[in-house]
């Protein structure tokens, strides 16, 4: 299951729960309520609201901790001590990558910059899914570290609109199996 599949599932469940809440209330909306029923439902609503707050708060704290504990972006201002380094330069409308081949199974540091406008450096796996990305911004070098689990031909696609040739602005990166595999 890719990260995209996990995100898609969480989104569908979340939006589904919101929809169920609305459908439940819409079904009930056509029914009248006397004073006693109104008081009771108001009380229930307050209790439910408190529970909802508690659930969301726990989700907020736990989710933030889980997703930020290991910060997903490598430090940018120190040597990353990664053996495989690829220098990447984007320009309207081509990529220059040195080298254009890396080994799977060990981290690769991409040093990404731009010669002209903003570009998006996105790596597409052979199955057509994005595995990681960063921006290529003029005047800055973004360091991206990624470990390829599988060898194959990966496509580098520009993902930040950069003018007429944005769509065709792509190249390939060969990821070869590590020796001994």
């Amino acid at each position, binding site marked *: 299951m*890719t*990260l*995209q599949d996990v*995100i898609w599932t969480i*989104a569908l469940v*979340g*939006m589904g729960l*919101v*929809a169920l809440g*609305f459908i439940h*209330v*819409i079904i*009930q*909306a*056509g*029914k*009248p*309520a006397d004073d006693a029923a*109104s008081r009771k*439902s108001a009380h229930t*609503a307050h209790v439910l609201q408190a529970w*909802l*707050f508690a659930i*969301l708060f726990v989700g*907020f704290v736990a*989710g*933030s901790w889980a*997703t*930020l504990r290991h*910060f*997903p*972006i490598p430090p940018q201002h120190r040597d990353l001590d990664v053996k495989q380094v690829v220098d990447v330069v984007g320009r*309207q409308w081509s990529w220059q990558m040195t080298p254009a081949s890396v080994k799977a199974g060990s981290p690769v540091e991409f040093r990404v910059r731009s010669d002209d*406008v*903003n570009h*998006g450096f996105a790596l597409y796996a052979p199955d*057509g*899914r*994005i595995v*990681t*990305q*960063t*921006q290529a*911004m*003029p*005047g*800055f070098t*973004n*360091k*991206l570290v990624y470990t390829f689990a599988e060898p194959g031909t990966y496509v580098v696609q520009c*993902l*930040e*609109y*950069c*003018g*007429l*040739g*944005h*769509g*065709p602005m792509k190249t390939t990166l060969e990821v070869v199996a590590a020796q001994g595999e």
Partner: protein
Amino acid sequence: MASLTLYPDDERLTGGTRAAFNLYIITAVALFVLMMLDGLTMRMSQAKWLNVPPDLFYQLLSMHGAGMVGTMALVTTAVMWFFLRKYVHLHLWAFVANYVLFMLGAVCIIVSIFVGGYGALWTFLYPLPVHGTGLWTGDWSALFLVGYLLIGVGSLLFYLDAAAAIIKVHGNLGRALGLQWLFGGTIDQNHPKTVVASTMVIIANSLGILAGAVVLVMSLVNIFYPEVVLNALVAKNLIYWFGHMYINATIYMGVIAVYELLPRYTRKPYPISRPFLWSWAVSTVFVIVVFPHHLLMDFAQPRWLAIIGQVVSWGAGFPVFLVTAYGALTNLYRSNIRWTMPSRLMVLAVFGWAAGIVPAILDGTIRNNLVMHNTQWVPGHFHFYLLLGVLAMALALMFHVIGSRVNEPPNSRMDKAGFPLYLFGGLIFVFAFLDAGHLSVPRRMAEHLDAWTFTDKLGSIGAILVVLAMLYFAIRITTGLLKSPAPGGARVGVPDAAG
């Protein structure tokens, strides 16, 4: 507390106010139809059902982005004005000046795109406006940016007039926001939610517009004096501070229609409360500082800014789920509401906002952004809460107003047919985007691989349904507004015509 009278006397539109309101709304619905056709053309081109050359595609994309954001701002400004004028004295000239400056700005934008060939999108991301590579020149980019400046000045004029009027009545903006009741005290139940929401928008969006003005002027200087080079990261921060704030403000202006109208249709009071005031106070801060979530893939950005972007994106869900959506549902629950166009649209609007936030929060998570950024997931979530949320809020007010002539909310057979067309068309349209994002299809790209065209075709079908519904709504609303008002205005004092 807001009146439960369906068409209260203090909302009646007469003379200049009616002309100005009609001008705003008729312009907006016409622009919405045109911009939707623009969007449909792009989706059909991606689906390979039309052949739109890339240069024209990116011009259409620039027009669609600028046009939709601008029109959303225009129409929700009308929503805010419509209700706020009941509580404070707004000057009609400021409302009209905003419209005039908007139209002048729109002309600059349209000319720069379709005459000058400008195609650097609504985000004018530095330094793309000066890198047109023969498609457009810096002069046309400058005209586009001047168009933005004119629109921004119009918005600021309106906000300044509204701020002065609010301060005159409430003493200062903090009291208008209800900060004095955050930690205790008896909340004045007559303190209008409209004033709270409007104050938040005035504070936050004025700051956003000022950030926009700074980067617009910097970009103009760069166009005419290329030796003045900007810091691309600072420029991007300012652009997204402005851009995010400007489009977000439309939600907070639009939701005023729900706060004001929903209790009239449910015939249940919708009291102001401490959680409500907290949610708006917190949202005021959140909405100002949340913009770094647009720069999560700019690794040169300081880490603390990226963390703020994620944490605040998540936190922004609390006020929406716990207060606005939950409050609206509580008000709706067992209310014996009679479903008419305004009430249907209001419930849809709150749903669209609440549900659309779920994929937005997921995208605002740094780890997820590594695979979702700049995919069609992004237009998926923002179309969710703009098309099914904000536009539905504005449409609710429009349908409500056209019912004022006969003191009866619209609910014709055609209306009943148009609503599901809009709802299901909208859902198909946004879910096609979201699924495409899940499949890593890039956003903002003219050329699509064959493997991506299934969701493009699905999205096009959804868009066709939405355009048909919106075309009907536009005609219905325009003809409704242009009918002469009932003699003496709407009947007054009828406690309820919705039941």
